[in-house]
């Protein structure tokens, strides 16, 4: 695949792309300088066409998507514990189940709610009744029509404690008796109390719609959904094969077949891409970026996600019961430095507030930076004078880079007179009772979440992830009010105030959001960067991808 015009067009193309890029970062400026240098130094030596560029802006395709082809995607995995039960499988296995099953609503790549199986929905003025109308003529993979009965069965199954479904914790406001059929295409959910996060329950991938009588599938038998791909073979830990659902209600799929191949070793995954065994690679290791950038015919897709790996401080345990200590610890972190050293630069700076894509996110609060003097002063007020010792528990269970971040914190803390002992815990032991949720000072991980959704999980005592033992009366009043407020503007204002309280006196030290990277052959296009991030930069929207 050689470019007729030679190498200089490659450099010009790069400059053009950088000039037009919506996001000029330090990286793109440096690349521009390098490109200029290369242009000046090199003559028109033949180079392969296309070159490698970061797709930070969506480039318009010249031709309409062609149909056909077999997409092969290399993903992280290799674990045999996945299943194809869409209501039970976790994020990692969810790459596969999200091809097969769909919920009533969904999320757009920029974190807004959108309609999926639902044609429309209404929320009553008191926030208790949600009436959802299905799109007509929807079918499951076996040809059966999707009706209100299927919706009711799906939600009953999620509510059943024996299913051990993912969504159980988020459905506290709904009882099995609260789901009623109004007609063949309409279901009414009546909540026990007003709860505006129920909208997100309808969009949660764990609340996917399955046919009446659906049981946990053994292998591919019974894995029936409405999604763009039908599963044809399944080898847990190795690979999963799909064919396109030609009756899919939404866009695509353009390709005919999809195979997701699992890799334990990132080197093997990269070699598979460069060797042509796969067309797409989910979650590129930051150390592998130079290889892709210097190999023509391959590109990187970057996604700024809302996923975060923070430090947690248990505010009912010493020394974090003193708000001044918590504030001091947040001032210890040199955020850009920690991002550079722990994540190789592949994160964007956070400001101790995590619901960054919420309409109510307080954008105007000043970005927190390192301030060791202020930190020392706060600690002194709290009674510590260069003699504060803490233990920081970390593990690769929360993220491969998190132990490195812990080490960086330890070094940075010295400047404030705090001595940190880093205790690295075995990943299989980290989440056990007595460990996680009991650690005074530790780390955790979260995907992109909206405020009201995550609060229920992590900031209330009865939530399953009550990591920081957070308790604040003013905050509690505001957030409970927010759950009940149907009016969007008013609710966003309340959420904004809640987030501001966490900014001032919260118990997380959150310094970053993840930047996800995917790599792909230039023959495969149609990849869309997604805020969600847990499964890679594209959130596995394989139905949109096509070959050129």
């Amino acid at each position, binding site marked *: 695949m050689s470019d007729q015009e030679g190498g200089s067009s490659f450099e010009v193309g790069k400059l053009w792309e950088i000039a037009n890029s919506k996001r000029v970062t330090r990286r793109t400026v440096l690349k521009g300088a390098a490109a200029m240098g290369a242009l000046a130094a090199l003559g028109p030596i033949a180079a392969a066409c296309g070159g490698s560029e970061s797709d930070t802006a969506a480039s318009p395709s010249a031709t309409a998507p062609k149909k056909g082809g077999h997409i092969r995607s290399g993903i992280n995995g*290799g674990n045999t*514990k996945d299943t194809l039960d869409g209501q039970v499988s976790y994020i990692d296995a969810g790459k596969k189940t999200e091809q097969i099953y769909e919920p009533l609503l969904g999320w757009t790549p920029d974190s807004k709610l959108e309609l999926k199986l639902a044609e429309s929905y209404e929320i009553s003025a008191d926030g208790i009744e949600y009436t959802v109308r299905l799109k007509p003529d929807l079918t499951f993979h076996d040809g059966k029509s999707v009706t209100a009965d299927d919706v009711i069965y799906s939600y009953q199954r999620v509510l059943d404690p024996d299913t051990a479904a993912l969504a159980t914790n988020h459905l506290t406001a709904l009882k099995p008796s609260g789901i009623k059929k109004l007609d063949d295409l309409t279901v009414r959910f009546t909540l026990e109390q007003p709860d505006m996060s129920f909208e997100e329950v309808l969009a949660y991938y764990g609340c996917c719609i399955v046919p009446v009588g659906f049981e946990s599938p053994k292998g591919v038998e019974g894995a029936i959904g409405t999604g763009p791909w039908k599963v044809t073979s399944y080898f847990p830990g190795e690979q999963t094969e799909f064919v396109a659902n030609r009756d899919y209600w939404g866009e695509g799929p353009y390709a005919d077949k999809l195979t997701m191949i699992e890799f334990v070793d990132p080197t093997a995954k990269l070699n598979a891409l460069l060797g042509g065994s796969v067309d797409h690679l989910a979650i590129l290791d930051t150390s592998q970026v130079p290889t892709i950038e210097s190999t023509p015919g391959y590109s990187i897709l970057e996604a700024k996600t809302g996923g975060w790996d923070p430090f947690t401080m248990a505010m009912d345990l010493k020394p974090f019961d003193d708000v001044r200590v918590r504030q001091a610890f947040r001032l210890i972190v040199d955020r850009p430095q920690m991002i550079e050293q722990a994540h190789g630069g592949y994160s964007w700076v956070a400001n101790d507030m995590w619901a960054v894509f919420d309409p109510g996110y307080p954008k105007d609060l000043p970005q927190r930076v390192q301030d060791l003097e202020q930190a020392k002063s706060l600690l002194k007020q709290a009674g510590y004078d260069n003699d504060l010792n803490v233990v920081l528990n970390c593990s690769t269970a929360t993220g491969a880079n998190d132990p490195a971040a812990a080490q960086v914190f330890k070094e940075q803390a010295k400047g404030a007179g705090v001595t940190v002992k880093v205790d690295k815990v075995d990943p299989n032991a980290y989440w*056990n009772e007595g460990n*996680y949720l009991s650690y005074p000072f530790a780390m955790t991980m979260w995907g992109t979440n909206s405020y009201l959704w995550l609060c229920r999980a992590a900031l209330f005592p009865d939530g*399953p992830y009550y990591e920081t033992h957070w308790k604040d009366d003013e905050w509690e009043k505001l957030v409970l009010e927010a759950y009940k407020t149907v009016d969007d503007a008013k609710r966003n204002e309340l959420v904004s105030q809640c987030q501001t309280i966490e900014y001032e006196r919260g118990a997380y030290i959150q310094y970053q959001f993840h930047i996800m990277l995917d790599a792909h052959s230039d023959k495969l296009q149609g990849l869309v960067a997604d805020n969600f991030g847990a499964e890679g930069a594209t959130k596995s929207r394989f139905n949109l991808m096509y070959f050129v």
Partner: protein
Amino acid sequence: MPPLLKIILRRLALGLLTMLVISVLVFAATQALPGDTATAILGKEATPERVKVLREQLGLDRPLLVQYVDWAGGILRGDAGDSLVGTGEPVNQLLGRRVMNTVALMLMAALIAIPPALVLGSLSGRFRDGLFDGAVSVGSLTFAALPTFVIGILLMLLFATQILHILPAVSRVEPTASVWSQMDLLWLPALTLALASAPFTVRMLRGSMIEVLESDYVQMARLKGAPERIVLQRHSLPNAIIPVIQVIALDLAWMAGGVVTVEYLFNYPGIGASLVNAVSNRDVPVVQAIVLLIATVYVVFNLTADILTILISPRLRTGLQ
């Protein structure tokens, strides 16, 4: 009863005892690790209620002795139980394919490694301290010193990704077809295993050959005027090879044990990666099955090596009578 048969039976009985002891030890070790299958599956989602429900479903709440005896009874019936994770596939089915993959890789590596190693070893022993011996020594010591995965990466760079592009960099075998029909994917991992294990055979044979060539009966054969070729083939090699058989048996058992780094590097679905995966999931039936399999391989290969040694060595053969 022929004495050889008596020896075999006794060794087999000892082997069975070994396997029993191993199964108990591995069971205990897996239980001693923090967490169990339920916590491994649920990870961060492991609320106490969900863990309890899952433990009951998997039978992990039964007393340890009951769990072990239940499993052992199954094994004696030929039923290795069901995997505790994923779709609960029967272990026999789950491992069947991966065992076949590992066997295929082992055979290919052995075929690549053993004949050249025998030739190199005996010749460098015969022509010791010459240029040929020097070259072979440097080569074999280098490869013996390099970790297996480094050899794998070097081969990958040389043949697949950087210098030449004649071999596939990833050896992912299609699970839907038989591994025997996809042997061309196995070149790099097989070469890696061969280069990692051959040096020991070469060195062993070289040393053994040197010793044999200085023995009385070889001097005798030469004095009798036997051509050098006969001296090597009929008088020296059968004796020199005896210690080497033990080394080869151990090498093969090592390969059969599933070399995890090679499997990870080339994404090869063998039993090494399965074992690591099963341990991290605390999937006890799978762990036990794989460990027993590997133990059986060691016992059988060692027994075979000993029998071959007896058969080849005339002294030991007559000693049987």
